C-alpha cells in the first residue's frame, strides 16, 4: 500500500493499540493463562476432593445405567428430530400458505418456550386424554422424554434446513426445472443435497445441545446422568467425584458426535473428503 514511504528495514509507525505482532502475543498469553487456570483448578479439585478409590467404585452400576438410558434416548431423539426437522424445514419453505403457516407456528412455539415446560406438558398432558388409571404405558417418562426432545429439536433443525435451502442459489432450481424435473425432483436431486451440506454444521450444533438437554429429564424421573450425580451426592456427601464422572460421560457422547458431524461435512463436500 504505502511501501514507498518507508526505507528498507524501517518499521511502519505502530498503531497505538493493536498491531498484528502485539495481537499474536496477547493471544498466546491469554491462552496460556487460561489453560493454566483450568488445569490448576481441576488439579486442586482432583487432588483435594476426589477420592480415587470411590472414583472407580461408584461407576458401577448407577452411572452405567444412566449412561445407557441417556445414550438410548439421544440415539432415538436424534434420528427422529432430524427427520422431523427436515419436514418442518420443508414446510417452512413451502409455497402453500397453510403449510408454511403451520410450520412457522410450530417453530415459534417449540423454540419460544422452554424445553422444561414442554417436557412437563407432554408428560402430564398426554396421559390426561385417557380416563384416570387407563393410560396404557406404565412408565411414560422415557417415551415422554423422547417425544419432548424430538419435537423441540425438530424446530431448531427445521430452521437450519430452511437456512440451508435459502442459501442454495435460485439458479439451481431453475436449471433443474429447465431439464424438465418436477418441483419435487428438483428439490430431491438438486436443492436438498446442497441445503443439507449448508445446514450440517448447525444441525450438528443442535444435536450436541440435545445431548446436554437430557440433563433436564430428571423432572420426568428419568434416571439420567445429573440425577445420578445427585443421588450419589446425597448418599455420600461427595459432589466432586460423581460430577467428574458426569463430565466424562457427557463428553464421551458429545466429542464423538462432533467428529461424526465433521465426517459428514467432509463427505458432503463434493471436491474433498472421503466419498
Amino acid at each position, binding site marked *: 500500500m504505502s511501501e514507498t514511504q518507508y526505507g528498507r528495514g524501517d518499521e511502519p509507525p505502530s498503531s497505538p493499540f493493536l498491531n498484528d505482532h502485539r495481537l499474536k502475543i496477547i493471544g498466546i498469553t491469554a491462552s496460556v493463562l487460561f489453560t493454566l487456570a483450568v488445569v490448576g483448578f481441576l488439579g486442586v479439585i482432583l487432588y483435594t476432593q476426589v477420592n480415587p478409590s470411590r472414583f472407580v467404585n461408584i461407576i458401577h452400576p448407577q452411572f452405567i445405567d444412566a449412561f445407557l438410558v441417556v445414550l438410548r434416548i439421544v440415539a432415538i431423539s436424534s434420528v427422529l428430530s432430524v427427520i422431523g426437522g427436515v419436514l418442518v424445514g420443508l414446510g417452512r419453505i413451502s409455497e402453500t400458505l397453510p403449510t408454511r403457516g403451520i410450520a412457522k407456528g410450530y417453530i415459534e412455539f417449540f423454540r419460544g418456550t422452554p424445553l422444561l415446560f414442554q417436557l412437563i406438558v407432554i408428560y402430564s398432558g398426554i396421559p390426561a386424554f385417557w380416563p384416570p388409571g387407563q393410560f396404557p404405558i406404565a412408565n411414560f417418562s422415557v417415551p415422554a422424554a423422547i417425544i419432548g426432545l424430538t419435537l423441540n429439536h425438530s424446530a431448531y433443525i427445521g430452521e437450519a434446513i430452511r437456512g440451508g435451502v435459502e442459501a442454495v442459489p435460485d439458479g439451481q432450481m*431453475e*436449471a433443474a*426445472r*429447465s*431439464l*424438465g*424435473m418436477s418441483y419435487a425432483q428438483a428439490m430431491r*436431486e438438486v436443492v436438498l*443435497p446442497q441445503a443439507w451440506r449448508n445446514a450440517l454444521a448447525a444441525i450438528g450444533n443442535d444435536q450436541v445441545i440435545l445431548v446436554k438437554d437430557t440433563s433436564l429429564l430428571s423432572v420426568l424421573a428419568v434416571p439420567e446422568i445429573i440425577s445420578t450425580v445427585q443421588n450419589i451426592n446425597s448418599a455420600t456427601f461427595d459432589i466432586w467425584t460423581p460430577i467428574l464422572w458426569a463430565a466424562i460421560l457427557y463428553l464421551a457422547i458429545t466429542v464423538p458426535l462432533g467428529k461424526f458431524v465433521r465426517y459428514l461435512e467432509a463427505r*458432503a463436500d463434493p471436491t474433498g473428503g472421503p466419498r
Partner: protein
Amino acid sequence: MSTRPLVEYESVDKYFGETHVLREVDLAVEEQEVVVVVGPSGSGKSTLLRCANRLEEIQGGEIRIAGDPISGPDASVNRLRQQVGMVFQSFNLFPHMTATENVAVGPRKVKGVPESEATERADDLLDRVGLGDQTESYPAELSGGQQQRVAIARALAMDPHVMLFDEVTSALDPELVGEVLGVMKDLATEGMTMLTVTHEMGFAREVGDRIVLMSDGEVIEQGPPESFFEAPETERGERFLERLL
C-alpha cells in the same frame, strides 16, 4: 409456408408488476435456424428467452413450440422443458455432481434412462464439447469456460428441439469466451435450432442466420446479419451499432 416455425411468439405481453417488459412481441424461429437477439441491457432479451420454457409466465399472446401452445389447458410444463434446452449466464451446474452426473441426471430422472446408458451418453456429449478428459471433475474444479460447456452438454442430453442461450459468455473471462462460442458454432453447423441472446457481435454476425434487435420490450427490427450490421433499417438500430464501436 410449407412448414410451421419451430418457435413462434405471437403478440406476447409480459409484465413484472407494473413494468411492461415484453410489448406484443412477434417472433418466429424456423427449424435449424440460428436467431441472435441483441439490444441494450434491460430491453427484455433474457425475459424473451425465459418465457419460451416458462421460467417466466406471459400475460398476453401465445408462444408455440412445434405448433403446440406452451401454456394452456393441454400444456405440460415438464414436457415442454424437455423439448427446450436452456443454458444460463451463470452456468448453474449442480456443484455436488461430477460433470458426467450433471449431464446424466436429466435423462435419468426425467426420462427414466438407465444409469449406465445415461452415463455413457453423457460422456459422449462431454467428449463432443471437448471435455472427454474431465468427466469425473466437479464444477468447482473446472474453469468457467469448461463449466459452461458442461452446461451445454447437460441441455443437449435431453435431445431438445431448440436450444436457448441466455448471455452464456457474459460471465466468462475474455480468454474463455472463444471455447464456448466454438461449441455453439459447431452446434449451429450441425443444424441445431438456436435462440441466442448475446453481446458477442462477432458471433452474431458469423453464426447468426437472423439478427433481432430489441429495445424497451419491443422487436425493433430483424434481418440477416449482413444487412443488419451494414445498413440497419431503423434509426434505433443505427444508434445501437454506433454505441458498439
